């Protein structure tokens, strides 16, 4: 972890908005201070309950269908475990439901030994049969428990997964078409949790509201739009978690969330707006964590759209963005300077590549001149909540500095996705790619391969002459088995993308800010920074 935490010294401390004591007091923190002083120990601490604020709960815990971060990731990480597990404090893949596994010589066959003695929340034993049923329902169109609208197969490598095999009661096998060095890490994703076969028998494909898995907490109750309640599972394989009960409370309003954290009615959250972090930290009651960043924030460029089809324009745009301004103004200093697509916490990161994401106004202007794109009007789309509007305003300003006219539209997420997946409707777009598994392939295959929505419709670069070489490199990096070799291959891949393709301009490496009450220990902020919410290590002091 220490080795991976590489940060550029320029941005972090220098960019933070200086908040003097006078300012904090003057702005009413005196009131906040009064509220926090002399309060008895939190009610929730007294009955060993954690209140975790999220931005949505739909109450549908179907792991293989996307229902928003609140359900599909944050609560899921407490409810279920998959074959493997990654803590994000390190990127090593550990066994969870699987005790161990081995990979064949050619890297195509993964054989997992199921951990003996594990049970599900309904008391039944965890066997390879349950593992089979979990994966069969997303692979086999004829499976009666198949959920509608599932796209999870893509996260296992799509058609690369040829066959699954129930070897015996405690052994399970995956057979791939081509080797996939990220495969074991993929199985740690929240949509790969193992579901109880008995529960599938009972609920069929509507297992969502009644998920039964083998995670540290069992589902008690969920009210759509309000909250989900889970309680500790005694027979969790790592031991019963310390906190008895967790309430995932929907609290999208940033003001209410901040005041609830300071007032103590919410124990923890990873949805705190960056603008309030400084103030939370100085309240004396809340710890603001600064985890590693796994999320890449970038500007997508539609390679088939007008001036953007010229590589020089795309490079100019990349040189025009002021990453320091992005980090300071949109994230209030709580973000990191990017290199290219891989963050410092991941394989494939080379700090020298920060040069690809450094502002060079002269170079940018010169490229625009060469391409004859002075004064060109370009559309940019962004979402309209959280930090996106702030980010959009910084980027717009930066691009206008090199002589481009930027026409920005801030839309709500439904419209945003609709627009970004239609290459005739957008040109520039602001987006992010988080890492539900730390393996870098998660940022390459789904974004750059032909046939994927991003590659065909968002950046629309599959027609470029670089495409075959790009695909070759991605596959090579994915299929190599040796981690050192892979690391170098991903570094080279990043360089190739930055120098030859350039359909993404990296803006920052970010994390979702984690704030927790001071009386909590064992908070895994690195995971929470990329939405993975592992709460079994948390306890009250």
């Amino acid at each position: 972890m220490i080795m991976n935490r590489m940060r550029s010294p320029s941005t972090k401390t220098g960019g933070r908005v200086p908040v003097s004591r006078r300012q904090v007091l003057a702005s009413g923190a005196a009131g906040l201070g009064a509220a926090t002083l002399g309060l008895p120990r939190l009610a929730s601490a007294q009955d060993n309950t954690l209140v975790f604020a999220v931005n949505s709960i739909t109450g549908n815990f179907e792991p293989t269908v996307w229902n928003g971060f609140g359900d599909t990731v944050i609560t899921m990480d407490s409810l279920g475990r998959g074959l493997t597990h990654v803590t994000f404090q390190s990127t090593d893949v550990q066994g969870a439901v699987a005790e161990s596994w081995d990979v064949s010589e050619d890297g195509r066959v993964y054989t997992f030994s199921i951990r003996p003695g594990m049970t599900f929340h309904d008391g039944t034993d965890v066997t390879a049969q349950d593992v089979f049923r979990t994966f069969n329902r997303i692979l086999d169109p004829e499976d009666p428990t198949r959920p509608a609208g599932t796209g999870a197969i893509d996260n296992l490598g799509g058609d690369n997964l040829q066959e699954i095999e129930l070897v015996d009661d405690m052994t399970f096998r995956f057979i791939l078409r081509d080797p996939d060095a990220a495969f074991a890490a993929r199985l740690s994703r929240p949509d790969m949790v193992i579901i109880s076969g008995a529960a599938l028998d009972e609920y069929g494909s509507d297992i969502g509201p009644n998920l039964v898995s083998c995670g540290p907490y069992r589902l008690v109750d969920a009210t759509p739009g309000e909250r989900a309640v889970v309680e500790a599972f005694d027979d969790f394989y790592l031991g019963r978690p310390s906190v008895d009960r967790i309430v995932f409370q929907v609290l999208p309003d940033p003001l209410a969330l901040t005041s609830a954290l300071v007032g103590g009615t919410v124990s923890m959250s990873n949805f705190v707006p960056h603008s309030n972090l400084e103030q939370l930290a100085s309240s004396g009651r809340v710890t603001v964590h600064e985890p590693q960043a796994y999320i890449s924030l970038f500007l997508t460029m539609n390679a088939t759209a007008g001036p953007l089809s010229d590589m020089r324009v795309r490079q100019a745009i990349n040189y025009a963005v002021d990453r320091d301004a992005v980090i300071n103004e949109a994230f209030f200093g709580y973000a990191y300077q990017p290199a290219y697509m891989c963050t410092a916490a991941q394989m494939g990161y080379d700090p020298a590549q920060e040069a690809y994401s450094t502002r060079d106004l002269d170079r940018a202007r010169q490229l625009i001149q060469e391409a004859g794109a002075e004064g060109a009007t370009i559309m940019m789309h962004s979402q309209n909540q959280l930090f996106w509007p702030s980010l959009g305003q910084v980027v717009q300003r930066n691009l206008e500095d090199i002589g481009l006219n930027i026409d920005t539209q801030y839309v709500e997420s439904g419209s945003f996705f609709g627009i970004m997946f239609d290459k005739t409707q957008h040109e520039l777009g602001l987006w992010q790619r988080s890492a539900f598994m730390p393996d870098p392939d998660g940022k390459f295959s789904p974004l750059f391969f032909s046939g994927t929505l991003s590659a065909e419709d968002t950046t629309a670069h599959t027609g470029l002459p670089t495409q075959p070489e790009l695909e070759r490199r991605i596959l090579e990096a994915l299929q190599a088995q040796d981690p050192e070799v892979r690391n170098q291959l991903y570094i080279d891949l990043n360089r190739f993308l930055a120098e030859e393709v350039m359909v993404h301009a990296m803006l920052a490496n970010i994390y979702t800010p984690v704030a927790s009450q001071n009386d909590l220990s064992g908070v895994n902020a690195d995971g929470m920074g990329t939405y993975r919410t592992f709460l079994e290590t948390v306890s009250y002091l």
Partner: protein
Amino acid sequence: MTSELIRRLAVLPLLLWAVVTLVFVLLRILPGDAATMLTAQVASQEVRDRIVIELGLDQSLWQQYLIYLGDLLRLDAGVSYISGRSVTSLIYTTLPVTIELAVAAALIMAALGLTSGMLAAAFRGSWIDVSVRFVATVLFSVPWFWLGIVLILVFSVQLGWLPSFGRLPPSVLYDPVTNFVLIDAIILGQPQLIWPWLQHLILPALTVGLTTAGFVTRITRVSFLEVMVEDFVRTARMKGMSGSRVFWRHICRNAALPIVTIVGLMFGAMLGGSVIAEVVFAYPGIGRMMVDAIFQRDYSVVQGAALVIACLYILVNLATDLSYALIDPRLRTA
């Protein structure tokens, strides 16, 4: 009156059908649909195509419309693709919340509005009258979301008296039966639910109630003033009736009509119109659910919620109109 009632009720299904169709069409104009939302995190085109088919979004608009209408007639409002719950169960959970909020807000609005209106009428021309009218006008000119923020700032942050979000504290276990907290507290014998519920209800109800109280103040004042100068009031006084009796027997009954109109209209409007308060305070009502569903392209939920809100709104207006007959016998036609 009965014929009026029957006529209005007969038109109701037609109006509802029109509302449903309008919402249906408007939703389809929005770019992006359920499949887009689901595949935002997914890579390949083939998976997306499959999802589109599974959700029935590949059929023509007309087909989808007819299927939806057919289901509605069989009382099947569809399923929320996001939560997997049936729309009826979602409405069953959220509608009582909005009703609670609307009732609380209406009570605050009526209490404030009526008393201040009567005060203004009683002390007409004095500084009381002028300041009441001034405050009333200011109150309904304030943007609702801004008032909500100010209330949170004052009562939650600075004073720490009241919570700023949700319907119940996270630590309270509530197993709803009817989804009305007051009723459930009685049925289930859990009186400890009531106080936290009230604490959470005050701020949103105040936000809505304060901003609408001004209308009631005005109409109350005007209405009372009009009636006060009527001849029959003078007659009653000359007959020797005391001030209080005159007030209750004659003035109130006659002044009530326009006041009831406004209160009824406002209550109906609150049923869906308190959406802003629901958003600011994260209050889990039907208005907020509908707005979230619009953003998430959860068509069935939006259509179901729109239908229910419109239905209630029309019924409340109808009830208001019919209550005239109760108040004013002259309006009772055969």
